[in-house]
């Protein structure tokens, strides 16, 4: 090595290290959310509360656009980012024929921010962009075999490797530096109607992978080895064999094995107990109970806590026992340590799609609070002994029609909520809409999947940014939305701010105490949850609208 080379390499190597980094060591994700965004919810708690304080109530009105970038899904590269660099060449993978035109896509993903790079997805597509200017660094495209292309929640990261699920049910691992594929592994059978939308969650040396299905197939959560992609364990959310727990809540083993309960949404993780806590979707058939009986249909519409090393269930709690309206309980659970009845408790909180709120002890699953937070929720007339709302038979789908709130889209949906320890409040987008549910399939054998009914939405009783006190389940305040309800999900920060789309074309910063709007920018309908990170001493706030990602900063 010449002297010149030596000087050059000495000068360059820290720069290279700084620019590329080593990705996300599993221990990094154990830290509370602050400078980077290394996993779907930022950290494992699901709070989406950032400790960053540079942007606060006194200066948020000066938050301004740093950059925006528009991405083009598919096999041909688009116009590229607005950072002045040419678009990256598209790296193509996948087992499909390559001639299935999926059309445009929407960024519903939470981006990962690691070492100055943002990683995010649309169905079949993953991008890395420079977090300083939005320039595309690489674009990976997966040729699909099919499956429902409704959304993709983002990537998981283990050291320098990324993981993405595809609508045709593969887990794909990419090298984060180049976007090149390391391997892909089948995670479910597309022919049985499975399609995959979740962001994989990395815990230690486990890649936790959920899937979805609308066709009477059993739900499951699987764990894969991040190095090899080998299956470590598979947990079915419904009884699959004689003697399995929960079987007595179904009319038959066959009904249970076709009972649904999909793991649509990434869960939360408690490192002290090694419990991964996630939620499950509706039982099938969704609207008729011909085959599934009158029982609770475990473990659909439930919170489930699994030991992350073994995949064995520690506890469950049924948030919508015997659901009859397709109210998946597929929401992000939020882990909170706080006072409850004068004692510090480790809790898990969820505002379920069915309009009910739950506070549970997350060590045991012990039920602490049930409340109705959906203002007009009218489908249940009783709680089970365990505190879960049970359907009023009069409000199930009927031939002549039942007028029910909420609609099957729910009081809230997949959009992640947020919890601020500064206020002790849980923030969620609430929609109080009505549908008429008609029973159209009178076959005593019951129907299938989401069939057998006709649902017609007939009006809205309003939509709100809603703040809930976990200690009582009481709604502390509701701030009306003018558009179609909140967009994308919630973010709170130690700057005492709450960022969210307002459903009327704005990204808004609210006072986290009162909900009062303090700043807005008219970037369009926000399609993912707002996020924040620190780079070069500046706090960035990012959010997506459709195919465009926007970054805001204080100068």
């Amino acid at each position, binding site marked *: 090595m010449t002297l010149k080379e030596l000087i050059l390499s000495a000068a360059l190597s820290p720069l290279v290290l700084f620019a590329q980094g080593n990705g996300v060591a599993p221990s990094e994700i154990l830290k509370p959310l602050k400078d980077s965004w290394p996993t779907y919810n930022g950290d494992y708690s699901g709070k989406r509360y950032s400790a960053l304080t540079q942007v606060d109530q006194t200066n948020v009105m000066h938050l301004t656009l740093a950059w925006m970038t528009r991405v083009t899904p598919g096999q041909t590269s688009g116009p590229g980012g607005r950072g002045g660099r040419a678009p990256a060449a598209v790296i193509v993978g996948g087992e499909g024929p390559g001639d299935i035109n*999926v*059309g445009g*896509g*929407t960024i519903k993903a939470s981006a990962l921010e690691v070492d100055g790079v943002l990683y995010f997805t649309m169905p079949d597509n993953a991008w890395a962009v420079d977090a300083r200017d939005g320039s595309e660094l690489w674009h990976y495209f997966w040729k699909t075999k*099919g*499956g*429902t*292309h*409704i*959304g993709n929640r983002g990537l998981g990261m283990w050291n320098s490797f990324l993981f993405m699920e595809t609508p045709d049910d593969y887990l794909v691992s990419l090298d984060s530096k180049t976007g090149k594929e390391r391997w892909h592994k089948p995670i479910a*059978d*597309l*022919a*049985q*109607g499975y399609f995959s939308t979740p962001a994989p969650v990395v815990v230690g040396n486990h890649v936790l992978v959920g899937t*979805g299905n*609308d*066709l009477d197939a059993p739900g499951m959560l699987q764990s894969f080895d991040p190095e090899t992609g080998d299956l470590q364990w598979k947990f079915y959310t419904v009884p699959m064999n004689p003697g399995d727990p929960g079987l007595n809540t179904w009319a038959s083993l*066959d009904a249970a094995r*076709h009972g649904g309960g999909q793991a*649509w949404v990434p869960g939360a993780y408690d490192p002290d107990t090694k419990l991964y806590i996630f939620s499950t979707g*509706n039982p099938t058939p969704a609207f008729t109970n011909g*085959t599934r009986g009158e029982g609770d249909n475990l473990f659909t519409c439930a919170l489930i806590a699994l030991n992350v090393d073994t995949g064995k269930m520690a506890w469950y709690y049924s948030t919508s026992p015997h659901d009859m309206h397709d109210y*998946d309980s597929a929401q992000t659970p939020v882990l909170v340590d706080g006072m409850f009845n004068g004692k510090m408790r480790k809790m898990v909180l969820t505002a379920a799609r069915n309009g009910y709120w739950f506070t549970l002890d997350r060590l045991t699953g012990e039920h602490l609070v049930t409340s109705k937070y959906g203002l007009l929720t009218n489908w249940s007339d009783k709680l089970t002994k365990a505190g879960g709302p049970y359907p009023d038979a*009069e*409000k199930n789908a*009927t*031939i002549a*029609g*039942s*007028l029910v*709130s909420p609609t*099957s*889209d729910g009081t809230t949906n*997949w959009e992640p909520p947020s919890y601020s320890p500064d206020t002790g409040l849980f923030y969620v987008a609430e929609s109080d809409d009505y549908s*008429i549910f*008609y029973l159209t*399939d009178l*076959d005593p*054998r019951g129907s*299938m*999947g*989401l*069939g057998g009914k*006709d649902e*017609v*939405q*007939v*009006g809205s*009783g309003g939509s709100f940014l809603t703040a809930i006190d976990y200690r009582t389940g009481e709604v502390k305040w509701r701030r009306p939305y003018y*558009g*179609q309800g909140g967009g994308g999900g919630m973010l709170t920060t130690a700057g005492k701010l709450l960022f969210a789309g307002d*459903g*009327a*074309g*704005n990204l808004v910063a609210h006072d986290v105490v009162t909900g009062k*709007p303090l700043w*807005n920018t008219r970037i*369009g309908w926000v399609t993912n949850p707002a996020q924040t990170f620190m780079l070069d001493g500046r706090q960035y706030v990012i959010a997506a609208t*459709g195919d465009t990602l926007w970054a805001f900063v204080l100068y």
Partner: protein
Amino acid sequence: MVRVKNWLLIALPTLLTIAVADHAAAQTAPPGATPPAASVPTAVRRSGGLVPGQKRPPGDPVQIERGKTLYGISCTSCHGADLRGGDLGGPNLLRSQVALSDQDGELIAPIIQGARQNSGMPAVPMSPADGKAVAAYVRSVVATIGTQGKPPSIGKPAPSVLVGDVTAGQAYFASKCASCHSPTGDLAGIATRVSDPKALQNVWVGGGRNRRFGPTLGAPGSRHTVMVTITEASGESVEGRLVRIDDFLVTVALADGTSRTFRREGDIPKVDVHDPMKMHRDLLAAYTDKDMHDVTAYLVTLK
């Protein structure tokens, strides 16, 4: 289930509101009249799309026909003519994971030949070629499953939604609806204009339109038009059709065809929204299902 329904519902309101006379006004409104707050989200939610889950070449019709015949002979009594399970209690083949995953009889044919006798499926004597034919027929029916697991149509008309009491419906109408509506005025002939009772129920409960999200801003001249009065700090006020409102801006269309946008700072300017549909939305929380069925039964008589 994830929120697939949003896209499906985009088509629904259009279908249902065509029947309503004053929707014509909305359809002929100038493009600029579309409220941006309502149109932007719809455009976003429309993107993406359903890709068929089972991309398979169509089967051989001759083989499928033979399979259908054999199915009718040997399988119907247990699995049903429609594959959804028969009188003798065989499982529903439409949601059978074996049937869904089968490619060329490799999963189904061994079961026909006796692989599952332990769980009650008898061996059915059949040549390997015939086993494949039955599998081809089963796959051909499975391929007709609709989105989100909707079973194939069995060709029966939907049962009538008319279960209400006409007299009770008339009384309810008189007490709750007659302040705005009249059976001899705006609703004369409503059951002729909307001849399907179910569509009629959807239309009247939704207040003449089935937009999911309120307030529906409406088009110029529509009965549903939301009006707004904006009063500035100076006391000056303007009134017109509400085009768009959020926490930060409010836009009003004026009588002269122009529009004005005001920045909102808390309570300034003062904004009074007059939404004629508010009563309809408020009633959603008041109707019992019996009220709803009774009023529908009554409205069906207004030919």
